[in-house]
Protein backbone atom coordinates (compact mmCIF):
# COMPACT_ATOMS: atom_id res chain seq x y z
CA UNK A 1 0.00 0.00 0.00
CA UNK A 2 2.59 2.52 1.16
CA UNK A 3 4.91 1.16 -1.51
CA UNK A 4 2.39 1.79 -4.26
CA UNK A 5 1.74 5.35 -3.08
CA UNK A 6 5.45 6.05 -3.10
CA UNK A 7 5.74 4.50 -6.55
CA UNK A 8 2.90 6.67 -7.80
CA UNK A 9 4.60 9.86 -6.63
CA UNK A 10 7.99 8.75 -7.95
CA UNK A 11 6.27 8.22 -11.29
CA UNK A 12 4.56 11.62 -11.05
CA UNK A 13 7.90 13.31 -10.42
CA UNK A 14 9.28 11.75 -13.60
CA UNK A 15 6.35 12.66 -15.81
CA UNK A 16 5.68 16.08 -14.23
CA UNK A 17 9.00 17.43 -13.00
CA UNK A 18 7.37 20.47 -11.39
CA UNK A 19 5.35 18.28 -9.03
CA UNK A 20 8.08 16.36 -7.28
CA UNK A 21 6.64 15.20 -3.94
CA UNK A 22 10.07 14.11 -2.87
CA UNK A 23 9.24 13.94 0.82
CA UNK A 24 6.77 11.15 0.17
CA UNK A 25 9.10 8.63 -1.44
CA UNK A 26 12.55 9.70 -0.25
CA UNK A 27 12.98 8.56 3.38
CA UNK A 28 15.71 11.15 4.00
CA UNK A 29 13.38 14.01 3.06
CA UNK A 30 10.51 12.41 4.96
CA UNK A 31 12.71 12.42 8.03
CA UNK A 32 13.50 16.12 7.51
CA UNK A 33 9.83 17.02 7.30
CA UNK A 34 9.02 14.96 10.38
CA UNK A 35 11.95 16.46 12.27
CA UNK A 36 10.73 19.92 11.35
CA UNK A 37 7.19 19.11 12.39
CA UNK A 38 8.48 17.73 15.67
CA UNK A 39 10.54 20.87 16.27
CA UNK A 40 7.52 23.07 15.53
CA UNK A 41 5.45 21.08 18.00
CA UNK A 42 8.17 21.15 20.67
CA UNK A 43 8.67 24.87 20.15
CA UNK A 44 4.93 25.53 20.36
CA UNK A 45 4.32 23.35 23.42
CA UNK A 46 7.31 24.64 25.40
CA UNK A 47 6.57 28.27 24.51
CA UNK A 48 2.89 27.87 25.34
CA UNK A 49 3.73 26.44 28.78
CA UNK A 50 6.45 28.99 29.54
CA UNK A 51 4.37 31.93 28.33
CA UNK A 52 1.47 30.86 30.54
CA UNK A 53 3.84 30.60 33.51
CA UNK A 54 5.25 34.05 32.70
CA UNK A 55 1.71 35.34 32.39
CA UNK A 56 0.64 34.03 35.80
CA UNK A 57 3.79 35.22 37.57
CA UNK A 58 3.63 38.61 35.85
CA UNK A 59 -0.05 39.05 36.72
CA UNK A 60 0.65 38.25 40.38
CA UNK A 61 3.62 40.64 40.40
CA UNK A 62 1.43 43.38 38.95
CA UNK A 63 -0.67 43.10 42.09
CA UNK A 64 2.42 43.79 44.16
CA UNK A 65 2.25 46.66 46.62
CA UNK A 66 5.73 47.76 45.52
CA UNK A 67 5.71 50.41 42.83
CA UNK A 68 9.02 49.48 41.26
CA UNK A 69 7.96 45.85 40.82
CA UNK A 70 4.86 46.97 38.96
CA UNK A 71 6.90 49.38 36.83
CA UNK A 72 9.36 46.66 35.83
CA UNK A 73 6.52 44.36 34.79
CA UNK A 74 4.87 47.20 32.90
CA UNK A 75 8.12 48.00 31.12
CA UNK A 76 8.53 44.38 30.13
CA UNK A 77 4.99 44.23 28.72
CA UNK A 78 5.46 47.44 26.78
CA UNK A 79 8.72 46.40 25.24
CA UNK A 80 7.57 43.00 24.08
CA UNK A 81 4.11 43.87 22.95
CA UNK A 82 5.24 46.85 21.02
CA UNK A 83 8.05 45.59 18.84
CA UNK A 84 7.99 43.12 15.96
CA UNK A 85 8.71 39.57 17.18
CA UNK A 86 11.11 39.14 14.30
CA UNK A 87 13.35 41.92 15.55
CA UNK A 88 13.01 40.51 19.07
CA UNK A 89 14.36 37.18 17.85
CA UNK A 90 17.25 38.90 16.09
CA UNK A 91 17.93 41.06 19.11
CA UNK A 92 17.92 38.13 21.54
CA UNK A 93 19.99 35.76 19.45
CA UNK A 94 22.53 38.07 17.89
CA UNK A 95 22.75 40.95 20.32
CA UNK A 96 22.19 39.31 23.71
CA UNK A 97 23.56 35.95 22.55
CA UNK A 98 26.98 37.62 22.42
CA UNK A 99 27.14 37.96 26.14
CA UNK A 100 26.14 34.51 27.30
CA UNK A 101 29.01 32.24 28.22
CA UNK A 102 29.96 29.27 26.08
CA UNK A 103 31.50 25.92 26.89
CA UNK A 104 33.64 23.48 25.01
CA UNK A 105 32.55 19.85 25.06
CA UNK A 106 35.51 18.49 23.06
CA UNK A 107 38.14 21.16 23.53
CA UNK A 108 37.74 22.35 19.94
CA UNK A 109 34.29 23.74 19.43
CA UNK A 110 32.93 26.65 21.40
CA UNK A 111 29.27 25.95 22.04
CA UNK A 112 27.16 28.71 23.57
CA UNK A 113 25.16 27.63 26.59
CA UNK A 114 21.97 28.84 25.00
CA UNK A 115 21.48 27.47 21.49
CA UNK A 116 19.40 29.13 18.80
CA UNK A 117 16.48 26.88 19.79
CA UNK A 118 16.96 28.07 23.35
CA UNK A 119 16.90 31.71 22.30
CA UNK A 120 13.83 31.12 20.14
CA UNK A 121 12.04 29.58 23.12
CA UNK A 122 13.07 32.43 25.41
CA UNK A 123 12.19 35.17 22.94
CA UNK A 124 8.85 33.73 21.82
CA UNK A 125 7.82 32.85 25.38
CA UNK A 126 8.49 36.37 26.55
CA UNK A 127 6.66 37.76 23.51
CA UNK A 128 3.51 35.73 24.15
CA UNK A 129 3.99 36.03 27.92
CA UNK A 130 3.68 39.83 27.69
CA UNK A 131 0.18 39.42 26.31
CA UNK A 132 -0.66 36.71 28.82
CA UNK A 133 0.21 38.97 31.76
CA UNK A 134 -2.39 41.49 30.60
CA UNK A 135 -4.92 38.73 29.94
CA UNK A 136 -4.55 37.10 33.35
CA UNK A 137 -4.53 40.42 35.13
CA UNK A 138 -7.83 41.35 33.52
CA UNK A 139 -9.15 37.95 34.53
CA UNK A 140 -8.19 38.48 38.16
CA UNK A 141 -9.68 41.97 38.09
CA UNK A 142 -12.95 40.53 36.80
CA UNK A 143 -13.47 38.64 40.08
CA UNK A 144 -15.44 41.05 42.24
CA UNK A 145 -14.32 42.04 45.72
CA UNK A 146 -17.59 40.69 47.14
CA UNK A 147 -16.85 37.16 45.95
CA UNK A 148 -13.50 37.28 47.71
CA UNK A 149 -15.26 38.58 50.82
CA UNK A 150 -17.69 35.67 50.69
CA UNK A 151 -14.89 33.13 50.72
CA UNK A 152 -13.19 35.08 53.47
CA UNK A 153 -16.37 35.00 55.55
CA UNK A 154 -16.38 31.21 55.14
CA UNK A 155 -13.06 31.12 56.93
CA UNK A 156 -10.70 30.82 53.96
CA UNK A 157 -7.40 32.62 54.20
CA UNK A 158 -5.91 34.69 51.37
CA UNK A 159 -4.09 31.78 49.79
CA UNK A 160 -7.11 29.49 49.91
CA UNK A 161 -9.28 32.24 48.45
CA UNK A 162 -6.85 32.60 45.55
CA UNK A 163 -6.45 28.89 44.91
CA UNK A 164 -10.06 27.80 45.17
CA UNK A 165 -11.98 30.88 44.06
CA UNK A 166 -10.10 33.72 42.39
CA UNK A 167 -7.70 31.83 40.12
CA UNK A 168 -10.24 29.25 38.84
CA UNK A 169 -12.65 32.06 38.03
CA UNK A 170 -9.96 34.29 36.51
CA UNK A 171 -8.75 31.41 34.37
CA UNK A 172 -12.18 30.68 32.98
CA UNK A 173 -12.78 34.31 32.16
CA UNK A 174 -9.41 34.70 30.45
CA UNK A 175 -9.60 31.50 28.45
CA UNK A 176 -10.99 32.88 25.16
CA UNK A 177 -8.35 35.60 24.98
CA UNK A 178 -5.66 33.22 26.14
CA UNK A 179 -6.53 30.77 23.37
CA UNK A 180 -6.44 33.52 20.80
CA UNK A 181 -3.01 34.53 21.96
CA UNK A 182 -1.70 30.96 21.99
CA UNK A 183 -2.90 30.41 18.43
CA UNK A 184 -1.04 33.55 17.50
CA UNK A 185 2.05 32.21 19.26
CA UNK A 186 1.99 28.97 17.24
CA UNK A 187 1.79 31.06 14.08
CA UNK A 188 4.70 33.17 15.27
CA UNK A 189 6.97 30.13 15.80
CA UNK A 190 7.54 30.20 12.02
CA UNK A 191 9.55 33.37 12.52
CA UNK A 192 12.19 31.39 14.41
CA UNK A 193 13.50 30.62 10.91
CA UNK A 194 15.34 33.94 11.12
CA UNK A 195 17.79 32.44 13.60
CA UNK A 196 17.93 29.10 11.74
CA UNK A 197 15.84 27.07 14.14
CA UNK A 198 15.13 23.85 12.20
CA UNK A 199 11.36 23.92 12.49
CA UNK A 200 8.92 22.90 9.79
CA UNK A 201 9.14 26.01 7.65
CA UNK A 202 12.93 25.92 7.78
CA UNK A 203 13.04 22.26 6.72
CA UNK A 204 10.62 22.74 3.85
CA UNK A 205 12.52 25.78 2.63
CA UNK A 206 15.78 23.84 2.71
CA UNK A 207 14.23 20.87 0.89
CA UNK A 208 13.21 23.02 -2.04
CA UNK A 209 16.55 24.78 -1.97
CA UNK A 210 18.16 21.35 -2.40
CA UNK A 211 15.63 20.03 -4.93
CA UNK A 212 14.22 22.86 -6.99
CA UNK A 213 11.68 20.51 -8.59
CA UNK A 214 10.08 19.99 -5.17
CA UNK A 215 9.11 23.64 -4.91
CA UNK A 216 5.40 23.30 -5.63
CA UNK A 217 5.10 20.18 -3.52
CA UNK A 218 6.75 21.91 -0.57
CA UNK A 219 4.48 24.92 -0.89
CA UNK A 220 1.39 22.77 -0.87
CA UNK A 221 2.58 20.93 2.22
CA UNK A 222 3.55 24.18 3.96
CA UNK A 223 0.12 25.67 3.48
CA UNK A 224 -1.79 22.53 4.41
CA UNK A 225 0.25 21.59 7.46
CA UNK A 226 -0.12 25.00 9.11
CA UNK A 227 -3.82 25.20 8.29
CA UNK A 228 -4.29 21.76 9.83
CA UNK A 229 -2.08 22.49 12.86
CA UNK A 230 -3.76 25.80 13.62
CA UNK A 231 -7.16 24.30 12.80
CA UNK A 232 -6.69 21.46 15.28
CA UNK A 233 -5.52 23.94 17.90
CA UNK A 234 -8.48 26.27 17.32
CA UNK A 235 -10.99 23.43 17.45
CA UNK A 236 -9.41 21.92 20.55
CA UNK A 237 -9.32 25.28 22.30
CA UNK A 238 -12.93 26.03 21.42
CA UNK A 239 -14.02 22.70 22.87
CA UNK A 240 -12.03 23.37 25.99
CA UNK A 241 -13.56 26.82 26.24
CA UNK A 242 -17.05 25.36 26.02
CA UNK A 243 -16.19 22.76 28.64
CA UNK A 244 -14.80 25.36 31.03
CA UNK A 245 -17.59 27.84 30.47
CA UNK A 246 -19.24 29.05 33.66
CA UNK A 247 -22.88 28.04 33.18
CA UNK A 248 -25.27 30.94 33.05
CA UNK A 249 -22.73 33.68 32.37
CA UNK A 250 -21.65 35.34 29.19
CA UNK A 251 -23.26 35.00 25.80
Amino acid at each position, binding site marked *: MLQSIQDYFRQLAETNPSWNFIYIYDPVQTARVLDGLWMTIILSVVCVILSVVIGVVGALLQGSPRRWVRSVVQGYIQFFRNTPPLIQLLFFYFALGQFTPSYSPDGWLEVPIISNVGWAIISLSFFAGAFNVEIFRSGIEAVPE*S*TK*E*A*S*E*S*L*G*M*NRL*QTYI*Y*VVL*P*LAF*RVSLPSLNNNLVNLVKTTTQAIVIAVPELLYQLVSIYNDYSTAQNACMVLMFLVYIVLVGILVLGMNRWERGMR*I*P*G*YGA
Partner: protein
Amino acid sequence: MAESKWTPKEPMVSAKDVHKSFGDLEVLKGVSMDVMKGDCVCVIGPSGSGKSTYIRCINALNPIDSGSIEVEGQEVNDPHLDKLELRKKVGMVFQQYNLFPHKTALENIMMAPMRVLKEPKDEVETRARELIKKVRLEGKEDSFPGELSGGQQQRVAIARSLAMRPDVMLFDEVTAALDPETVKEVLVTIRDLAEEGMTCILVTHEMGFAREVANHIYFTDRGVIVEHGPPKTFFTKAKDPRTKEFLSQIL
Protein backbone atom coordinates in the same frame (compact mmCIF):
# COMPACT_ATOMS: atom_id res chain seq x y z
CA MET B 1 -8.26 32.01 75.64
CA ALA B 2 -11.14 34.15 76.70
CA GLU B 3 -13.44 31.81 74.87
CA SER B 4 -13.51 29.21 77.62
CA LYS B 5 -15.02 31.68 80.04
CA TRP B 6 -18.10 32.23 77.93
CA THR B 7 -21.31 30.54 79.05
CA PRO B 8 -24.65 30.53 77.22
CA LYS B 9 -26.06 32.81 79.91
CA GLU B 10 -23.89 35.67 78.72
CA PRO B 11 -24.56 37.56 75.48
CA MET B 12 -23.42 35.61 72.44
CA VAL B 13 -22.57 38.79 70.56
CA SER B 14 -21.73 41.79 72.64
CA ALA B 15 -20.81 45.11 71.08
CA LYS B 16 -19.64 48.03 73.19
CA ASP B 17 -19.18 51.55 71.90
CA VAL B 18 -18.08 50.54 68.40
CA HIS B 19 -16.56 53.29 66.27
CA LYS B 20 -15.68 52.94 62.60
CA SER B 21 -14.63 55.50 59.99
CA PHE B 22 -13.89 55.29 56.31
CA GLY B 23 -11.46 58.14 55.81
CA ASP B 24 -13.17 61.28 57.06
CA LEU B 25 -16.56 59.67 57.12
CA GLU B 26 -17.50 58.31 60.53
CA VAL B 27 -19.98 55.53 59.88
CA LEU B 28 -20.39 54.05 63.36
CA LYS B 29 -20.39 56.48 66.29
CA GLY B 30 -20.54 54.28 69.34
CA VAL B 31 -22.85 51.35 68.72
CA SER B 32 -23.61 48.97 71.60
CA MET B 33 -25.78 45.89 71.43
CA ASP B 34 -26.14 42.54 73.23
CA VAL B 35 -27.52 39.50 71.49
CA MET B 36 -28.33 36.40 73.55
CA LYS B 37 -28.18 32.86 72.30
CA GLY B 38 -31.30 32.01 70.30
CA ASP B 39 -32.21 35.65 69.71
CA CYS B 40 -33.34 36.90 66.34
CA VAL B 41 -32.38 40.54 66.06
CA CYS B 42 -33.34 42.89 63.24
CA VAL B 43 -31.39 46.06 62.55
CA ILE B 44 -33.39 48.59 60.58
CA GLY B 45 -32.80 52.15 59.51
CA PRO B 46 -32.43 54.42 56.50
CA SER B 47 -29.72 53.57 53.98
CA GLY B 48 -26.33 54.92 54.87
CA SER B 49 -27.04 54.64 58.57
CA GLY B 50 -24.16 52.18 59.08
CA LYS B 51 -26.15 48.99 59.65
CA SER B 52 -24.35 46.95 57.00
CA THR B 53 -20.99 48.18 58.19
CA TYR B 54 -21.90 47.12 61.70
CA ILE B 55 -22.66 43.52 60.88
CA ARG B 56 -19.62 43.29 58.63
CA CYS B 57 -17.58 44.35 61.65
CA ILE B 58 -18.96 41.44 63.65
CA ASN B 59 -17.42 39.12 61.08
CA ALA B 60 -14.15 41.11 61.00
CA LEU B 61 -14.64 41.88 57.31
CA ASN B 62 -14.19 45.50 58.31
CA PRO B 63 -11.83 46.15 61.22
CA ILE B 64 -13.21 48.53 63.84
CA ASP B 65 -11.41 51.63 65.05
CA SER B 66 -12.31 51.53 68.71
CA GLY B 67 -14.68 49.85 71.13
CA SER B 68 -15.14 46.12 71.37
CA ILE B 69 -17.15 43.35 69.79
CA GLU B 70 -17.10 39.99 71.53
CA VAL B 71 -18.46 36.85 69.93
CA GLU B 72 -18.84 34.09 72.52
CA GLY B 73 -16.26 35.90 74.57
CA GLN B 74 -13.77 36.19 71.70
CA GLU B 75 -12.68 39.79 71.08
CA VAL B 76 -12.94 40.76 67.40
CA ASN B 77 -11.00 44.00 67.83
CA ASP B 78 -7.75 42.20 68.51
CA PRO B 79 -4.68 42.40 66.28
CA HIS B 80 -3.95 38.74 66.98
CA LEU B 81 -7.49 37.68 66.18
CA ASP B 82 -7.79 34.09 64.93
CA LYS B 83 -10.10 34.86 62.03
CA LEU B 84 -10.66 31.20 61.23
CA GLU B 85 -11.87 30.53 64.78
CA LEU B 86 -14.21 33.54 64.56
CA ARG B 87 -15.61 32.62 61.18
CA LYS B 88 -16.31 29.06 62.26
CA LYS B 89 -18.69 30.58 64.77
CA VAL B 90 -20.16 33.31 62.58
CA GLY B 91 -21.90 32.62 59.28
CA MET B 92 -22.67 35.44 56.89
CA VAL B 93 -25.06 35.83 53.96
CA PHE B 94 -24.67 38.76 51.56
CA GLN B 95 -27.07 40.92 49.63
CA GLN B 96 -25.45 39.83 46.37
CA TYR B 97 -25.40 36.09 47.23
CA ASN B 98 -21.70 35.91 46.20
CA LEU B 99 -21.88 32.25 45.27
CA PHE B 100 -18.86 30.84 43.47
CA PRO B 101 -20.11 30.78 39.88
CA HIS B 102 -17.79 27.97 38.75
CA LYS B 103 -19.08 25.48 41.33
CA THR B 104 -22.44 23.71 41.49
CA ALA B 105 -24.85 24.40 44.35
CA LEU B 106 -23.68 21.27 46.17
CA GLU B 107 -20.00 22.09 45.61
CA ASN B 108 -20.55 25.63 46.86
CA ILE B 109 -21.91 24.20 50.10
CA MET B 110 -19.20 21.56 50.46
CA MET B 111 -16.23 23.75 49.67
CA ALA B 112 -15.58 25.50 52.98
CA PRO B 113 -16.06 22.46 55.28
CA MET B 114 -13.74 20.44 53.05
CA ARG B 115 -11.08 23.06 52.41
CA VAL B 116 -11.15 25.01 55.64
CA LEU B 117 -12.24 22.48 58.25
CA LYS B 118 -10.61 19.59 56.32
CA GLU B 119 -13.54 17.32 57.02
CA PRO B 120 -13.92 14.06 55.05
CA LYS B 121 -15.78 14.40 51.78
CA ASP B 122 -18.48 11.75 52.41
CA GLU B 123 -19.50 13.33 55.66
CA VAL B 124 -19.61 16.83 54.19
CA GLU B 125 -21.63 15.63 51.23
CA THR B 126 -24.25 13.98 53.41
CA ARG B 127 -24.57 17.17 55.40
CA ALA B 128 -24.68 19.33 52.27
CA ARG B 129 -27.53 17.24 50.83
CA GLU B 130 -29.46 17.62 54.08
CA LEU B 131 -28.94 21.37 53.94
CA ILE B 132 -30.16 21.48 50.33
CA LYS B 133 -33.30 19.73 51.52
CA LYS B 134 -33.63 22.12 54.40
CA VAL B 135 -33.60 25.18 52.12
CA ARG B 136 -36.06 23.34 49.82
CA LEU B 137 -33.81 23.04 46.80
CA GLU B 138 -33.96 19.28 46.19
CA GLY B 139 -33.06 18.59 42.58
CA LYS B 140 -30.89 21.69 42.22
CA GLU B 141 -27.76 20.07 43.70
CA ASP B 142 -25.94 20.03 40.38
CA SER B 143 -27.13 23.37 39.04
CA PHE B 144 -24.64 26.18 38.73
CA PRO B 145 -25.41 29.54 40.35
CA GLY B 146 -25.92 31.10 36.92
CA GLU B 147 -28.72 28.63 36.29
CA LEU B 148 -30.60 29.48 39.48
CA SER B 149 -32.94 32.36 40.20
CA GLY B 150 -31.96 34.99 42.73
CA GLY B 151 -34.07 33.46 45.51
CA GLN B 152 -32.64 30.02 44.84
CA GLN B 153 -29.10 31.39 44.84
CA GLN B 154 -29.70 33.16 48.11
CA ARG B 155 -30.96 29.94 49.70
CA VAL B 156 -27.85 28.12 48.48
CA ALA B 157 -25.81 30.92 50.08
CA ILE B 158 -27.65 30.36 53.37
CA ALA B 159 -26.99 26.63 53.17
CA ARG B 160 -23.35 27.34 52.36
CA SER B 161 -22.97 29.33 55.57
CA LEU B 162 -24.86 26.75 57.61
CA ALA B 163 -22.49 24.02 56.41
CA MET B 164 -19.83 25.54 58.64
CA ARG B 165 -22.18 24.91 61.60
CA PRO B 166 -22.01 28.48 62.89
CA ASP B 167 -23.49 29.63 66.19
CA VAL B 168 -24.55 33.02 64.84
CA MET B 169 -25.86 33.88 61.39
CA LEU B 170 -25.52 37.37 59.95
CA PHE B 171 -27.84 38.40 57.13
CA ASP B 172 -26.87 41.57 55.26
CA GLU B 173 -29.97 42.81 53.41
CA VAL B 174 -30.36 39.37 51.91
CA THR B 175 -33.63 40.13 50.16
CA ALA B 176 -32.79 43.59 48.83
CA ALA B 177 -31.66 42.34 45.42
CA LEU B 178 -34.48 39.84 44.92
CA ASP B 179 -37.64 40.00 42.86
CA PRO B 180 -40.69 40.52 45.08
CA GLU B 181 -42.01 37.03 44.36
CA THR B 182 -38.82 35.31 45.49
CA VAL B 183 -38.32 37.35 48.65
CA LYS B 184 -40.79 35.18 50.52
CA GLU B 185 -39.03 31.88 49.92
CA VAL B 186 -35.84 33.30 51.41
CA LEU B 187 -37.62 34.84 54.39
CA VAL B 188 -39.39 31.56 55.12
CA THR B 189 -36.01 29.82 55.19
CA ILE B 190 -34.66 32.37 57.66
CA ARG B 191 -37.80 32.13 59.80
CA ASP B 192 -37.42 28.36 60.01
CA LEU B 193 -33.84 28.85 61.13
CA ALA B 194 -34.81 31.34 63.81
CA GLU B 195 -37.56 29.05 65.06
CA GLU B 196 -35.05 26.23 65.40
CA GLY B 197 -33.14 28.44 67.80
CA MET B 198 -30.36 29.75 65.58
CA THR B 199 -29.03 33.10 66.73
CA CYS B 200 -29.66 35.51 63.87
CA ILE B 201 -28.75 39.14 63.25
CA LEU B 202 -30.47 40.63 60.22
CA VAL B 203 -30.10 43.93 58.48
CA THR B 204 -33.34 44.26 56.63
CA HIS B 205 -36.01 46.47 55.12
CA GLU B 206 -38.72 43.82 55.48
CA MET B 207 -40.77 45.31 58.30
CA GLY B 208 -43.44 42.62 58.14
CA PHE B 209 -40.79 40.00 58.63
CA ALA B 210 -39.14 41.94 61.43
CA ARG B 211 -42.43 42.28 63.25
CA GLU B 212 -43.29 38.61 62.89
CA VAL B 213 -39.96 36.89 63.52
CA ALA B 214 -37.61 39.18 65.42
CA ASN B 215 -37.65 39.28 69.18
CA HIS B 216 -35.72 42.53 69.29
CA ILE B 217 -35.48 45.42 66.87
CA TYR B 218 -32.77 48.06 66.67
CA PHE B 219 -33.26 51.30 64.76
CA THR B 220 -30.06 52.99 63.61
CA ASP B 221 -29.58 56.37 62.06
CA ARG B 222 -26.35 58.20 61.20
CA GLY B 223 -24.15 55.74 63.00
CA VAL B 224 -25.95 55.47 66.31
CA ILE B 225 -28.71 53.28 67.71
CA VAL B 226 -31.62 55.62 68.13
CA GLU B 227 -34.09 53.28 69.70
CA HIS B 228 -34.60 49.57 70.32
CA GLY B 229 -37.11 47.22 71.81
CA PRO B 230 -39.26 44.15 71.18
CA PRO B 231 -41.41 44.44 68.02
CA LYS B 232 -44.69 44.90 69.88
CA THR B 233 -43.65 48.09 71.59
CA PHE B 234 -41.19 49.21 68.92
CA PHE B 235 -43.73 49.44 66.10
CA THR B 236 -46.58 50.88 68.11
CA LYS B 237 -44.97 52.98 70.80
CA ALA B 238 -41.86 54.46 69.27
CA LYS B 239 -40.69 57.46 71.23
CA ASP B 240 -37.94 59.08 69.20
CA PRO B 241 -39.13 61.45 66.42
CA ARG B 242 -36.58 60.00 63.95
CA THR B 243 -37.95 56.51 64.49
CA LYS B 244 -41.47 57.75 64.09
CA GLU B 245 -40.62 59.50 60.86
CA PHE B 246 -38.86 56.44 59.46
CA LEU B 247 -41.72 54.14 60.39
CA SER B 248 -44.31 56.49 58.95
CA GLN B 249 -42.44 56.51 55.66
CA ILE B 250 -42.27 52.78 55.21
CA LEU B 251 -45.30 51.38 56.99
